[in-house]
């Protein structure tokens, strides 16, 4: 009895193994690598090994000795010769702004040969090396493992004594953006629920032929390309767009008073709500479809008003659908990138746009990775809360 059971278990496991392995390699491993990238930054340490070694016994206050200047001078010169100085200088610049140009200038100014005093030569190339902060920046950029990307991502910094402090309010970017993203996602989820619930109810309680037709009206946008829908919203909402044209034609808005409906937060909200609405309606419909209309009739025959029947009988039964739809919409919303990037203008950007910016433009991959990990942590917390409150098992996406 035990043997056939074991072989059946093995066979079932073996069938899932190829996909499990594929997901681990092409999905879990990339996420793990992102986690590593967010704390591991060896480039400066690899580029300036002798300088960093010479700084190991430096007191952090006075000027370092001649060996440190020699190591720095030779290494900057070598890097400049290999065209590798820019990348290193950029990383140091993220610690102490202004250092990029100083390092590039130093590398360029140092001629061939070995000067009598490297200290004088380096200081002549750029006097910044007479200040402790330049050397401190090198030291900090040279840490192979660092939490500084997380500090940046949470708008924190270290002061001169090394204590963690919040940066000045006018420089805080990421925490306000993360909060805004959460708030916008929450708003979109709430709007989708308010718009989607009556529609799902209508579809679930219509006669079959009509409900199939109505369902198609939800499924067509669901299947339509995200870019098409985003483009349509630009067409509809832009200054010379259809909505403004209608408002002007009707006389609600003056010709020179056309409303700014897109390339701002309003555009992001409208377009994302429309795009995510089917993700709310479909799970709601799936759950409502399985609720017998007898329940409401029973409540009504026992003397309950529609409102009482709805609140006490119907709504509680739709909770799994409400929870599933809300979770889905919320999680899709906090990671949304394409739509805010295209219709959000300056004010409608979300945290994902910042991740993409650091991935593709500032090339600060460590910071992008740290922001990604923080967002992933938010999603994981959400799932955990959802699991405690509703139970992932009860989440139904389909009828």
């Amino acid at each position, binding site marked *: 009895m035990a043997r056939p059971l074991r072989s059946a278990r093995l066979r079932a496991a073996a069938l899932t193994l190829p996909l499990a392995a594929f997901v681990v390699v092409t999905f879990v491993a990339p996420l793990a690598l992102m986690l590593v990238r967010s704390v591991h930054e060896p480039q400066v340490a690899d580029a300036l090994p002798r300088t960093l070694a010479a700084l190991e016994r430096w007191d952090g206050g006075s000027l370092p000795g001649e060996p440190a200047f020699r190591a720095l001078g030779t290494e900057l010169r070598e890097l400049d010769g290999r065209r590798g100085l820019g990348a290193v200088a950029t990383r140091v610049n993220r610690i102490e702004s202004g250092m990029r140009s100083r390092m590039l200038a130093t590398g360029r100014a140092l001629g061939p040969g070995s000067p009598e005093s490297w200290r004088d030569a380096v200081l002549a190339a750029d006097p910044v090396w007479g200040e402790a902060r330049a050397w401190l920046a090198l030291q900090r950029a040279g840490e192979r493992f660092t939490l500084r990307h997380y500090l940046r991502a949470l708008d924190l910094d270290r002061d001169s004594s090394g204590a963690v402090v919040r940066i000045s309010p006018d420089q805080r970017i990421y925490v306000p953006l993360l909060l805004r993203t959460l708030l916008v996602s929450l708003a979109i989820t709430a709007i989708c629920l308010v718009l989607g619930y009556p529609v799902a109810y209508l579809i679930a309680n219509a006669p079959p032929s009509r409900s199939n037709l109505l369902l198609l009206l939800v499924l067509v946008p669901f299947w339509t390309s995200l870019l098409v829908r985003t483009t349509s919203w630009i067409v509809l909402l832009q200054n010379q767009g259809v909505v403004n044209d209608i408002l002007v034609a009707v006389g609600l808005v003056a010709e020179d008073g056309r409303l700014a409906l897109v390339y701002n937060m309003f555009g992001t909200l409208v377009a994302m709500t429309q795009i995510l609405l089917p993700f709310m309606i479909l799970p709601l419909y799936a759950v409502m479809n399985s609720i017998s209309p007898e329940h409401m009739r029973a409540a009504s025959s026992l003397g309950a008003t529609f409102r009482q029947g709805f609140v006490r009988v119907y709504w509680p039964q739709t909770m799994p659908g409400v929870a599933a739809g809300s979770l889905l919409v919320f999680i899709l919303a906090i990671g949304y990138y394409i739509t805010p990037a*295209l219709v959000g203008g300056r004010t409608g950007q979300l945290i994902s746009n910042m991740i993409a910016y650091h991935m593709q433009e500032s090339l600060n991959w460590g910071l992008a990775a740290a922001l990604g990990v923080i967002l992933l942590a938010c999603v994981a917390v959400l799932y955990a809360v959802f699991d405690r409150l509703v139970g992932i098992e009860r989440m139904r996406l389909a009828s």
Partner: protein
Amino acid sequence: MTARPTSLTLGDRLRGGFHLAACAAVFVFLIAPMLVVVPLSFNAEPFFTFTEGMLSLDPDAYSLRWYRNVIQDGEWRHALANSLLIGLAATALATALGVLAALGLTSSSMPCRTLVTGLLISPMVTPIIISAAGMFFFYSSLGLGQTHVSLILAHAVLGTPFVVISVTATLAGFDRNLARAAASLGAGPWVVFRRIQLPLIAPGVISGALFAFAVSFDEVVTVLFLGGLAQRTVPRQMWTGVREQISPEILAVATFLVGFALLLLGAVEWLRRRGGGPAQGNT
């Protein structure tokens, strides 16, 4: 005695009317964006708005010039070829792996089912910006940045949860006694799968594959992160078009994509009515 039911009915009617009106507004909100791009793509002028001629249904105000432009444009053709190549390869991979896994997951003796299901579904429930960033680090450290291979693998893993869910749903209604009967008549596991299970779950497999293809065909974040010029797909080309030079060519492509979506939707609905696949819009 008689007044109460009457007033209730009036209240019911009012509520019903309000409900219908609200739903109609939501349906307009859902569908209008799709309806507006189609006529505008036939605009003779390079505008994104309805011209007076279009509103008065003047045939001269309509033209196929944007469609001609798109068809003759090498970049769009290249993008379509890339989309099809990446989409078909990713779908084949996702379907093969997904069907196998679904067979295992629905077996009554599957160990750690919840955990494994969670793992297999995770690509679907992780925000795409995070997945794409991780994949960028991963493939560029393997030296596979800006290759078709990396995009095919990325799209395949994003598509697999849809195949797994679709096939699992079909298998849930599958009568296991049929497989047992075949086995008792001497059929090996492969024959049972090929002759009994596969024909029965075929609708679920096909709709899962269509889902996977739709995911790949519409995916642009991974293409932005992992792809270079040689890997431009249709959505990637649209992204550039919307960002840089908005022209009605975009609307012509959008109309084509709406048609394509209708086609996919029709196919999935048809399969669903044949008793295969999960419910509508299973995501």
